[in-house]
């Protein structure tokens, strides 16, 4: 090409070349097309004839094909240095070469003799040739297999020989593999001839395997291959001498099958392979093993563990159990219901793992029993844990991951915005598609979207309730439902960044853990009645019963909390309602025995989904019964009728749903169905197999029992056994106990209320005994909430015989942290304690602990001297009952024993509890941060901040200018019980004139408004002013009127705040 060639010429030239190439390809295709009838050599010859026409200079061009060890070249072929090659490959293994030569020197462009397009051309052709050859091979193989099958039918004996024969001819690699396996078998059996062959095998292996060597063109390798094949045949010869035909046959079959599936295992074991590949592999495995002709290919433990690790959990405890119960076919269904972003690795999170494993365990253990039919798991779709990452990246919200490192106040403030942000974000299209598929599969029944975070499956951390679960009514058009679902998922995602779990993680040093959150989309178990959707009954069950209402119930007997409707009412502690409690190990011993108790402690409300309004709501059971009671299936199993004091179970035919005498008691369910037994068996089985006590959530649709969740029971902070320190100095121990212990930890008790059992017994007047009850009630209102304990003679709340215990009702002591009953021996006879039975369920729901003490038992310490000898502040607190000071003793711990608090630790595992004095807030050897119980009460933040603010006010206050004598802090800020919206209660001892008072009030109101703003920022709580100021004068103090009593009070005294500017205000407390 000369430079003067016009652009048109260049284009024309290019086009010409192009057409030549196309022509060549066309011709090659034609040849191959006819090739069905031709032998390979003929095909090759034809091809080399037409090939040169596709090149620039056909006249001086020659083509050559090398196939295996044969060479096909035109006559007079002269190899030259100008050569273009392309390998012919079958299954990526080179078996030949296509070559094009120029016999003479030709002009080159940039050092290249061949055009780009020519290179492409030759590659294309080589590929086509390869494909053709492969195609032929396959045809041959198919043919051979058919033959073999026929021969198999004819000859029964030595069928394996036939197979091997076939294999040798069609798939040598597999043949060699199988013979090697057989060799190992023989070797392990100790057969000598095998040993000899072994040596040769390994030697030749190095040279023979065609896939190892790069260079195909070595004739010598043919020999080694031959040798190998010969050895292989020999192996089987030997084998036939030592093993039966059937044996050999089965083994060969097995190995062939295994080889088929080997690719699956390779992918699965590779943990770096993306999820899509793994799912692909599983699907292919399933395909291979489906169908009656193909025998099942066993999957090794290694692969199972790999699968478990990928999808479920990599905790060794979990894997240890899971590998016995989960097999590859358990994943078949799972993978069809997983939604994942591209590039996902697949973890499903703790909740999903727990449930999955539990289901498999139960299915296996109960196989064949009627229980197996009855037990189910609701249909669930899963979103992998890394989808949240993809969601965040898709919306360019990466900075959000910094959220958890921010200041708690900021997190709190920003959280509502984050929710909105997430809700308005868009899901990546592959997730949307997945969700849409999920909706199609799940139908239009209500759904629950649950979080399943990676942290949730760590033992010892309790994220229950910290992340959201959302109910969806799932009604309406597909678009509406999809939007609602996406909304819900987004909201659950947002809850990763909510202040509560972040705080929780900070406390446990888990903040840096990459919190990924999987999602479970589950069908809500239930039935439709009227416009409502709910399960007839649901609840939670525990392997270990930490709330035993009778000494005859052991910890291992377990506990079920049952409610009508959605199980949400059983999971949480309710402030206004009670679930029905049954212990599966002792179903006959119920917590509520008398008709009043049954009535009082029965569920009054029900959670359900209203399909009309598309909402989740709580409703009064009575009004629900009135509305749909007659349609409620098997209602007679769930209620009892109470007429006057007669409690009975209705027979079911004519229940009057309008009746006011119906209470929910589950009597019929407990006594006339196998339900309790079933749950008991489930709990026991899961505990045995998983090696740890479990807690499960379940629901029933009236016909089947559904398992909704399963996790280790120790994940609940309430149930953590507090380690009992062994090094407490004896003089600090107030009491210990060895019988009937439940788990728990009560750290900072500031007051002990001790009713001396002897003094109480000696009261001569029943009126006085009643007064003790009244006094306790008063104390209950005065003492700081949950920071005092009540100790008294057995049977608190005694009815009938007041001598046996103090006459109180639940409301008289509901602020106590622990209720303790002391049983002292009377002669040979130790009184029976009540275990709080009269208000047992109230204790449970408000987390008041119960502890029985038996001071006269051996090895028990009961420091009565301390209790009787410490200064008694009762008379000053409740002066109207001062005459009972001998009986009721109130000990103010920080005041009397040099600022120590009482700490009570209870450990049910070893059956020990101890109450001892210790400095407040100090962790002795007993606590590790990861096990520390999260206090359900207000975070320390609030009162501490308020205290600081109060001190700041005091320090800024110009006492002289405003005529202030002293300033005190009291109320919740002083008592460390302040909540996010609490006031700061200030008491000002004022000694100035009206003018000064006005100024002071203005100054303080300014502070009040500012603090309210700050508080809004910190907590989101809006108040008009944060200060609540009271003024007292000298006169008030003298007369002890109004708030002045708080100054210098015996207990709960106002705290004096240091003023600057010289006024000394230290008043003795």
């Amino acid at each position, binding site marked *: 090409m000369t430079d003067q060639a016009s652009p048109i010429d260049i284009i024309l030239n290019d086009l010409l070349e192009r057409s030549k190439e196309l022509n060549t390809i066309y011709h090659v295709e034609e040849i191959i097309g006819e090739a069905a009838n031709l032998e390979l050599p003929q095909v090759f010859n034809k091809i080399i004839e037409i090939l040169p026409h596709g090149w620039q200079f056909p006249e001086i061009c020659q083509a050559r094909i090398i196939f295996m060890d044969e060479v096909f070249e035109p006559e007079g072929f002269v190899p030259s240095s100008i050569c273009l090659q392309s390998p012919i490959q079958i299954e990526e293994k080179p078996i030949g070469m296509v070559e094009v030569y120029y016999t003479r020197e030709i002009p080159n462009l940039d050092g290249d003799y061949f055009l780009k397009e020519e290179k492409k051309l030759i590659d294309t052709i080589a590929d086509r040739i390869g494909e053709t050859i492969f195609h032929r091979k396959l045809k041959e193989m198919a043919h051979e297999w058919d033959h073999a099958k026929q021969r198999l039918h004819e000859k029964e004996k030595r069928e394996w020989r036939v197979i091997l024969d076939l294999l040798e001819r069609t798939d040598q690699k597999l043949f060699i593999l199988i013979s090697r396996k057989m060799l190992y078998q023989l070797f392990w059996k100790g057969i000598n001839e095998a040993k000899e062959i072994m040596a040769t095998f390994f030697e030749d292996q190095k040279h023979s395997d065609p896939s190892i060597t790069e260079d195909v063109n070595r004739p010598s390798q043919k020999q080694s291959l031959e040798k190998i094949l010969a050895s292989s045949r020999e192996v089987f010869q030997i084998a036939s001498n030592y093993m039966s035909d059937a044996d050999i046959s089965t083994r060969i079959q097995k190995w062939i099958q295994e080889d088929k599936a080997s690719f699956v295992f390779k992918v699965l074991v590779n943990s770096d392979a993306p999820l899509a590949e793994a799912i692909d592999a599983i699907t292919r495995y399933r395909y291979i093993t489906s169908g009656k002709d193909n025998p099942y290919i066993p999957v090794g433990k290694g692969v199972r563990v790999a699968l478990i690790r990928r999808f479920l959990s990599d905790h060794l405890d979990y894997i240890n159990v899971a590998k016995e119960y989960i097999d590859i076919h358990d994943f078949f269904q799972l993978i069809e219901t997983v939604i994942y972003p591209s590039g996902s690795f697949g973890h499903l999170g703790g909740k999903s793992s727990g449930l999955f494993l539990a289901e498999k365990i139960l299915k296996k253990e109960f196989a064949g029993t009627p229980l197996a039919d009855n037990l189910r798991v609701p249909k669930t779709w899963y979103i992998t844990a890394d989808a949240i990452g993809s969601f965040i990246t898709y919306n360019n919200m990466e900075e959000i991951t910094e959220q958890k490192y921010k200041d708690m106040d900021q997190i709190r403030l920003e959280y509502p915005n984050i929710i909105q942000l997430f809700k308005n974000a868009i899901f990546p299209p592959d997730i949307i598609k997945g969700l849409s598929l999920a909706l199609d599969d799940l139908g239009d029944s209500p759904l629950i979207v649950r979080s399943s975070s990676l942290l949730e499956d760590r033992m010892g951390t309790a994220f229950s309730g910290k992340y959201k679960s959302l109910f969806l009514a799932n009604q309406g058009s597909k678009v509406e439902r999809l939007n609602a679902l996406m909304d819900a998922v987004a909201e659950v995602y947002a809850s990763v960044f909510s202040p509560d779990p972040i705080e929780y993680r900070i406390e446990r040093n888990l903040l840096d853990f990459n919190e990924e959150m999987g999602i479970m989309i589950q069908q809500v178990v239930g039935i439709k009645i009227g416009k409502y959707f709910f399960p007839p009954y649901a609840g939670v069950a525990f392997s270990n019963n930490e709330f035993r*209402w009778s000494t005859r119930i052991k910890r291992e007997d377990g506990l079920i909390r049952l409610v009508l409707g959605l199980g949400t009412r059983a999971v949480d502690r309710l402030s206004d309602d009670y679930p029905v409690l049954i212990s599966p190990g002792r179903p006959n011993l119920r917590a509520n025995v008398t008709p009043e108790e049954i009535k009082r402690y029965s569920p009054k409300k029900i959670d359900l989904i209203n399909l009309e309004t598309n909402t989740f709501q709580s409703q009064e059971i009575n009004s629900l019964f009135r509305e749909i009671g007659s349609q409620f299936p098997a209602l007679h199993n769930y209620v009892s009728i109470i007429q006057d004091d007669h409690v009975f179970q209705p027979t079911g035919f004519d229940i009057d749903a309008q009746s006011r005498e119906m209470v929910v008691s589950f009597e019929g369910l407990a006594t006339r169905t196998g339900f309790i037994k079933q749950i008991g068996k489930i709990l026991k089985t899961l505990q045995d197999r998983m090696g740890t006590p479990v807690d499960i959530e379940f629901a029933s649709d009236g016909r089947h029992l559904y398992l909704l969740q399963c996790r280790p029971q120790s994940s609940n902070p309430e149930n953590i056994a507090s380690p009992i320190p062994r090094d407490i100095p004896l003089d600090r121990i107030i009491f210990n106990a060895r019988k009937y212990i439940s788990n728990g930890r009560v750290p900072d008790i500031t007051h002990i209320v001790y009713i001396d059992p002897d003094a109480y017994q*000696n009261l001569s007047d029943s009126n006085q005994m009643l007064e003790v009850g009244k006094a306790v009630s008063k104390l209950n209102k005065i003492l700081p909430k949950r920071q005092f304990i009540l100790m008294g003679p057995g049977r608190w709340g005694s009815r009938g*015989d007041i001598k*046996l215990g103090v006459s109180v009702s639940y409301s008289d002591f509901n602020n106590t942290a622990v209720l303790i009953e002391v049983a002292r021996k009377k002669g040979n006879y130790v009184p029976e304690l009540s275990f709080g039975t009269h208000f047992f369920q109230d204790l449970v729901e408000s987390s008041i602990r119960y502890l029985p003490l038996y001071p006269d038992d051996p090895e028990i310490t009961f420091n009565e001297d301390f209790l009787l000898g410490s200064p008694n502040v009762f008379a000053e607190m409740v002066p109207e009952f001062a005459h009972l000071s001998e009986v009721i003793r109130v000990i103010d711990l920080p005041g009397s024993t040099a600022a120590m608090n009482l700490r009570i630790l209870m450990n049910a595992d070893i059956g020990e509890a101890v109450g001892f004095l210790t400095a407040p807030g100090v962790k002795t050897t007993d606590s590790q941060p990861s096990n520390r119980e999260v206090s359900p009460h207000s975070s320390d933040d609030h009162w501490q901040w308020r205290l600081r603010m109060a001190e700041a006010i005091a320090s800024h206050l110009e006492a002289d200018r405003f005529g202030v004598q002293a300033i005190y802090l009291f109320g919740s800020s002083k008592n460390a019980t302040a909540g996010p919206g609490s006031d700061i209660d200030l008491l000002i001892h004022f000694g100035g004139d009206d003018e000064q008072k006005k100024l002071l009030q203005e100054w303080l109101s300014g502070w009040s408004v500012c603090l309210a703003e700050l508080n809004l920022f910190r907590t989101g709580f809006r108040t008009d002013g944060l200060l609540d100021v009271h003024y007292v004068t000298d006169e008030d103090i003298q007369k002890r009127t109004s708030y002045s009593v708080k100054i210098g009070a015996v207990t709960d005294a106002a705290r004096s705040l240091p003023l600057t500017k010289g006024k000394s205000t230290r008043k003795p407390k």
Partner: protein
Amino acid sequence: MKQNGFNPFEMAQAQFDKAAQLIGLDDGTRELLREPLREYHFTIPIRMDDGHIKVFKGFRVQHNDARGPAKGGIRFHPQETIDTVRALAMWMTWKCSVVDIPLGGGKGGVICDPHNLSPREQEQICRGWVRQISRNVGPVLDVPAPDVMTNSQHMLWMLDEFETIHGGRYPGFITGKPVGMGGSLGRTEATGFGLVFHLREALNDLGLKPKGTTAAIQGFGNVAQHAIRLFQDLGGTVVSVSCWNQSESLAYTFRKKDGISLDELLSITDSFGGIDKEKARELNYEVLPGENWIEQEVDILIPAALENQISRENVDRISQQVKVIAEGANGPTTPDADERIRNRNIFLIPDFLANAGGVTCSYFEQVQSNNNYYWEKDEVLGKLDLKMTSAYIAVSELCRKNRLYMRDAAYIIAIKRVAQAVRDRGWA
């Protein structure tokens, strides 16, 4: 077991001694009446659910049956003391006597805690109790009833065992049975109605009729509800009702100056007698603090909730308008308050008498059972009216004649009747 401190039996005896002194009983009679006639102590061996045997202690104290077969409850209690039971048995004698029903007094029970027992084990205990004492109880000897921690189911089990032993149907053996299984109609209303019957008679004595009078009631349980119903039917107006609010652990008084509507309040009440505060407000009831019930400007106060509700602290807040206090509960007035009420000349119907409707209905159950014929409700309530009225008249006459306080008069009449019976029989 020597006991220091408060001894309920000694206290009951002291009470009796005082009254005996007033009546002028001779020593012999006094000595007879201040002790129980018979006491049975026995053991009940039970095979527990898990197979092991546990032995329970049971007992029955029959204080006095001169006027008729002994009557009294059976209680299950983990540490019953015999002195309490003796005191209660004595109390039953007086109670039956004051309403003039032909029954004596008794009490009994088993030392156990039903919370620790399965239903089957409880049944065993009930039957075991009857087995041990079957020779000494029965429709003509001693008629038990439910009490603390026992209920109608236990009564039925005991009846069944008794009938098996004695070979026949003896529904009159025990009371407290459910309607349809030997129970009497009208039992739910009995105490409340009984109270109002006494009230009506008391008003009559004062020259008043229920119509035109107003009342304030503390409590909104069974007794209060039925008392209100009847009182309003008779034309009275109930101005306020106070009750306990479970969730707030507080009491509230609900007032409507021109009369509360019972049905309205019932519709917003939960099953323990707690009225919904918000809904009450919506229905235009004033919601006041619980303790305000006592200062209402009404003619009649009815404490029908717990004991010790009228005490030194609040007795002076009683309005000047109040003329009658009818004690619907047990022991709602403390002794010091009692003193003040007496001084103010407010007429008081003692609990002893006022809430005897219950025991009277129990007697009716026994009567119907013995006849194997069960009356309709209006017949039961009609007879109740009669009985209450006569009982009241007897006491109030004694009051007038001897210028006694009602409480003392009631007690004295009760003892007198028993003393008379004992003498008539030739026992003393």
